[in-house]
């Protein structure tokens, strides 16, 4: 602010009041700025508190109760719900299913997305390059439930496209969603199809920020193909790779819609044959909304939250050693 403006209230020739009033003004401005700042984030903060953190804390709270929804009565049971979970084989089975699902989907999606991004980058200047990019991204913008129903037809053992392709290739046919062995892999195929476009676009964005002259320098240094990719490209896009793996891990650990729709959605969400597609999120849904064990489901959700947090922290720990930020 103007000097004259600040000293206006203070008598001339006395330095102290002048400085004090100036300090007071500065404090006043700082306070105003702070208040305005909080005011600006308040709306979204409220939304988060009411619809996100609030229910999350409530969820942790009710996981320590036995909550009877019909009697509208709850009894504190301590860690009883968690003990029940620990002794329930289906819960462990669901964790195994989730692990199986995540450990296959995440690496496959990441590698496929990276490969597609590299291809699309090479194709960007040729005819149809932009169209291919759009086509790869397209599945991701479709509604999961709608395209899951289409894929349920594709996976139909008798009339589906999937078995038609196998027949055409003279390969043995598969029961797909009807088979305890193949139901979860079928869901994986759908998930990769649906999400790979997003990660491809992320990788494309990462590749487009590669410094051109550094790649040229590598070329002049005699490196090409795999060597240049491994020693130059891969380290330089490592932040994107880390982000993709992190995002893919978190979303696949929470996958629900396609499992529900593809395996038994129409029949009450029972999951694939012999609990073969019962991942933790499906089990949480069944426990809460089929068996109405809200407290138990809350306990499961909390365990899932802790697991995702743990996996994320481990990934972060690894990334801090491997990712290079420019």
């Amino acid at each position, binding site marked *: 602010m103007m000097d004259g403006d600040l000293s206006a209230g203070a008598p001339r020739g006395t330095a102290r009041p002048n400085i004090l009033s100036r300090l007071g003004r500065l404090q006043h401005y700082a306070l105003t700025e702070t208040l305005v700042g909080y005011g600006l984030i308040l709306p979204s903060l409220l939304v988060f508190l009411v619809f996100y953190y609030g229910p999350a804390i409530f969820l942790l709270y009710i996981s320590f109760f036995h909550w009877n929804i019909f009697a509208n009565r709850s009894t504190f049971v301590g860690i009883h719900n968690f003990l029940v979970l620990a002794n329930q084989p289906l819960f462990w089975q669901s964790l195994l299913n989730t692990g199986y699902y995540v450990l296959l989907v995440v690496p496959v999606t990441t590698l496929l997305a990276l490969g597609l991004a590299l291809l699309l980058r090479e194709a960007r200047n040729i005819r149809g390059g932009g169209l291919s990019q759009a086509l790869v991204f397209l599945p991701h913008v479709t509604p999961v439930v709608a395209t899951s129903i289409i894929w349920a037809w594709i996976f139909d053992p008798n009339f589906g496209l999937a078995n038609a392709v196998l027949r055409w290739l003279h390969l043995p046919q598969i029961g797909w969603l009807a088979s305890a062995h193949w139901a979860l892999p079928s869901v994986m195929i759908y998930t990769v199809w649906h999400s790979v476009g997003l990660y491809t676009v992320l990788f494309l964005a990462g590749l487009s920020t590669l410094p051109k002259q*550094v790649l040229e*320098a590598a*070329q002049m*240094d005699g490196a*090409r193909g795999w*060597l240049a990719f491994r020693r130059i490209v891969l380290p330089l896009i490592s932040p994107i790779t880390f982000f993709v793996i992190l995002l893919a891990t978190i979303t696949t650990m929470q996958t629900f819609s396609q499992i529900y729709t593809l395996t038994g959605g129409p029949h009450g969400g029972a999951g694939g044959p012999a609990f073969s597609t019962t991942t933790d999120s499906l089990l949480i849904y069944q426990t809460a909304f089929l068996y109405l064990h809200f407290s138990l489901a809350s306990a499961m959700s909390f365990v899932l939250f802790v697991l995702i947090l743990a996996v994320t922290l481990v990934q972060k720990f690894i990334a801090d050693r491997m990712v290079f930020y420019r």
Partner: protein
Amino acid sequence: MGSIKLHTISKKFGQRQVLHDINMEIQDGEFVVVVGPSGCGKSTLLRIVAGLESPSSGDLEFDGRAATHMPAHARNIGMVFQNYALYPHMTVFDNLAFGMTARKSSRQEIQQRISEVADLLEIGSLLKSKPGALSGGQRQRVAVGRALVRNPYMFLMDEPLSNLDALLRERMRVELRRLHDRVRIPTLYVTHDQTEAMTMADRIVVMRDGRILQVGTPDEVYSRPNSVFVAQFLGSPPMNLVRVERRSEASLVLEGSEGTAFPAPDGIRRATDSAWWMGFRPERIIRSHGGASGLAMTASIRAIETLGSRYHVHANWGRFPITWVTPEAPGLMPGSQVALTVSWNHVHWFHRDTEQRVPEDAALDFPVEAGGIR
């Protein structure tokens, strides 16, 4: 090591032709500087030699062998980029080692070469740092080291000093040239800075609009520029150019002036043109105290710049602005008149229409007895 030859190299980007029939040769051990204003095609030329672009037509020869279609990674050329283009995720050691690893040199050989080059460039203490932690000058050295370490067939340098501050640039200029004198690897150096070109080159190639205008040693190009463009591009402040026209067969006057006539040299006397450019370097002007023979002029001073070691005096001769560089300027001030002379053999003549130099043998063969016409 060996020579590099370019035969009628042309390059088109779509409809735009950026290089027209470039012919040049870089001898073994030679330091050639390509200089020209931005957009003259000099960087494209460098990238074609590097193999990062392919020519639309023409041939490239390394040591007598066809190299036009040789891929960049197979050319064994050391290149220094304008922004250095160091590998940001690698230590300086790994930056230097990368090219040798790619060429499958042994670990021991790599160690030894790197320590040699690090000694030469005084970057031994930086080997464990990453590029992000280095200053501009240090990065510059590492970039040179990376190009040098695998003992390349030739060096390409694309405005390597333009990201440095003035003082450092001056120092690196000397160091790069000294390095070249030690290793004698043929070097093609691209710059828009005429000072770099003059100070570093064995030979200068002046380019404009995708064509080579002149090739020669710095002295040749400076003292006998073959066109108005070269005359003005090299030298700071640039050569003074004034328009002159024929008054009679044997005498010329400043264009549009009724004033002093001066004799025309032979080449001009014989030619049929009636209008010319007359040029003279600012530092070739001397103050005349009568008697000195040469081009005489009376100029009125507009402004005087003091540079410490010398003065740039801006003046008008007739209606033409001229610049005079002089180590001392006693008694001069804006508004005053001064009598100046340029010896006839430091006066350059160019055709007005083609802007080409009037051949030396004709122009310099000057009738001395006619010098006195006032």
